[in-house]
């Protein structure tokens, strides 16, 4: 006999479904309408349906594809770097953290800072006349590179993002690594497996689900990046650091192109859905 019958189940679920429909469904429906309309701030309540022109404009816009390229590269590279460094730290720091767990707190500190604050902080830290990094580079080498010019802005933003979010990957990997039963490691050791072989053939496969999930969480976060990039470079230099989120924000508020901005967000939504389904399919195939 079921603990909750079907009617009760529906009754319990109704508020949640209602909540989701209202708070997620309504804006999504409005977005879909705006994306096929000519609409401005003056006509928000009376958009006129004009077809798929906004989608055509977005797909023909070189800046949209530039923003897609930036977000994709940024998402993949930061996720990869954060996972690799996080994994390295988890494997090498686990013995130390097992004895001195209080060290975990300072390692997690970067996660406590809002991304926009990180952007502002580095704006100061890297400023040629006020920041400590250029100051010491001038003191020691007589020169300092342009951290935020068109050649280096992307690399600088990568480093800033990686420094902030590697602790997140590290935390997940540390928990997964520490959760591997001691008996498994002892058995491998008795069978003569070296530490490297045990890591490669036993520990990493056991951590694989965590590795995959961490990579995709970090990829999604990197792909949709906005705050720290906007605060640090304002989509410069020369538009070279325009992420997809910044593109949508600028088209909506700065350009007043509401239909185009919303169409871009729908394209982003569909692409995200495709990636998530793809991921689901890959992990499902892995389990079979």
């Amino acid at each position, binding site marked *: 006999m079921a603990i909750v019958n079907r009617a009760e189940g529906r009754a319990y679920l109704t508020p949640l479904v209602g909540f989701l429909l209202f708070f997620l469904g309504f804006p999504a429906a409005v977005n879909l309408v705006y994306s096929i309309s000519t609409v*401005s*701030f003056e006509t928000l309540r009376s958009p006129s349906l004009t077809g798929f022109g906004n989608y055509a404009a977005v797909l023909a816009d070189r800046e949209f594809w530039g923003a897609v390229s930036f977000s994709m590269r940024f998402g993949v590279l930061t996720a990869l770097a954060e996972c690799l460094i996080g994994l390295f730290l988890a494997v090498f720091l686990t013995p130390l953290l097992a004895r001195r767990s209080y060290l975990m707190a300072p390692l997690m500190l970067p996660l406590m800072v809002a991304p926009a604050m990180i952007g502002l902080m580095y704006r100061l830290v*890297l400023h040629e006349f006020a920041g400590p990094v250029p100051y010491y580079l001038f003191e020691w080498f007589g020169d300092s590179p*342009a951290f935020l010019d068109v050649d280096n*802005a992307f690399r600088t933003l990568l480093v800033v993002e990686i420094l902030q979010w590697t602790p997140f990957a590290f935390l997940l990997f540390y928990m997964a690594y520490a959760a591997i039963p001691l008996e498994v490691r002892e058995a491998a050791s008795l069978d003569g497996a070296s530490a490297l072989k045990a890591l490669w053939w036993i520990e990493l496969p056991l951590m694989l689900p965590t590795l995959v999930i961490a990579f995709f969480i970090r990829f999604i976060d990197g792909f949709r990046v906005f705050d720290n990039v906007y605060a640090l470079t*304002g989509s*410069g230099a*020369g*538009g070279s650091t325009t992420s997809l989120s910044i593109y949508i924000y600028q088209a909506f508020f700065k*350009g007043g192109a509401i239909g185009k901005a919303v169409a871009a967000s729908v394209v982003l939504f569909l692409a995200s859905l495709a990636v998530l389904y793809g991921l689901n399919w890959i992990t499902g195939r892995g389990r079979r």
Partner: protein
Amino acid sequence: MKLNRTSFSAAAILLASVALPGISHATVTVLGWPGGSEETALRATVEAYNAQSGIADADKVELLFFNRDGFYDKLQADMAAGSNAFDVNLVATYSIGRYAPYMEPVDLGADAGKVFGESVLKTMQFDGKQYGVPTDLSLHFMYYRKDLVDALMQDDAAKKKYAEIAKEHLGKDLQPKDPDSWTWDDWAATTLYFSKQVNSDSPVRYGTVLQMKNLLFNMMVFQSLPRSYGADWTDKDGNVTVDSDAYKTGLELYRKLYDAGASPKDSLSYEYAETNAAFGAGQAATALQWNAAAADLTNAEKTPAVAAVTGIVAPPAGPNGRADHIHGLGLGLNKNAKNKEGAVKFLKWLATEDAALLYARSGGSPALAPDVAAKVSNERPDLVKLGEFASQYGYVMNGATSANALSIYELQAKEFTGYWAGQQSLEDALAHTKTGMQDLLKK
């Protein structure tokens, strides 16, 4: 039970203390420009207004501020949604056209022209109607290091070197001049002379600090250069003229100075604050910067390295003379205001001489008519210079108060910084800007 009664009483007192002031006092809500001297001045002025005996409780003013970041975007969203959370809202010259559909014109009375002057009142007009009281005026000063320029003018060997640099980089025969008579070529030669990359003997690292970040306000700083060569957004028939030789000259000069190392390498991410920091650190010989920076750059406590040696002149001249971008901040009437009568009463008072002088004495930067400015010249000598530059060199580009003016500045910022960063050619940048402006001005 006693505890419950006590708790109930405490809660009632707390509720009353929160709710009652809103009911019994301020019913004209003013949304002001947050932070900085504007907020300080507005607070003092409103306090004086509320203290007047003839102001009914129902017409007293309450101030509302939110963050500067994204201020205009938030205001846009609020006004488009028909918000009546404020009766009076901030408006700026470059955004009047955008907000005019959600505002109502106000009649400030005949005396307002005598207080501010007609050209300043125009900074708050759209389609010939007055949409606000001008409270603060912004324009640009050319800040320069008096000590460095004086030393250059007195040293024959330095003058020779200056002439060589001008010939090599600008292809012109130039000699050092007093900054108040600089042309843009003179300024460019001076910035090159004071750049380590061009002249290893320069006492400072850079000749200037260009604000080249992809930011609309940086376009306002830049455009006085092409303007002095005759640039405008459109001609009198409404045709977009951004691809003129004047714009090309200005854009190319910025690029040339940046490429030559006359401005910091990170200039492509520089705006107001970075420019102040660079000039204030004593490592730049000149800076074209907003007038609001004058208070800090000439304050020995805030900027000890250069405060005593900072000179201020109007931007250099081009073939068409000097040009100085002006725009005003002001306060206007929300169409959905709950207390329109009280709001209009406050705005009219704000446009009187007494209120304008009080605002000036409290730290604001109103552009006042010469005889009115003379009354505060001892306390605020900078306002005299502000009024002088605004009346002699101030300009507003054709279309710069239109509904899409902000979007046009955004477009220019994106395209022009793309050229400066080497992301696209000058021709492409101007072609994209022209097409975009034609579309935006048509809407």
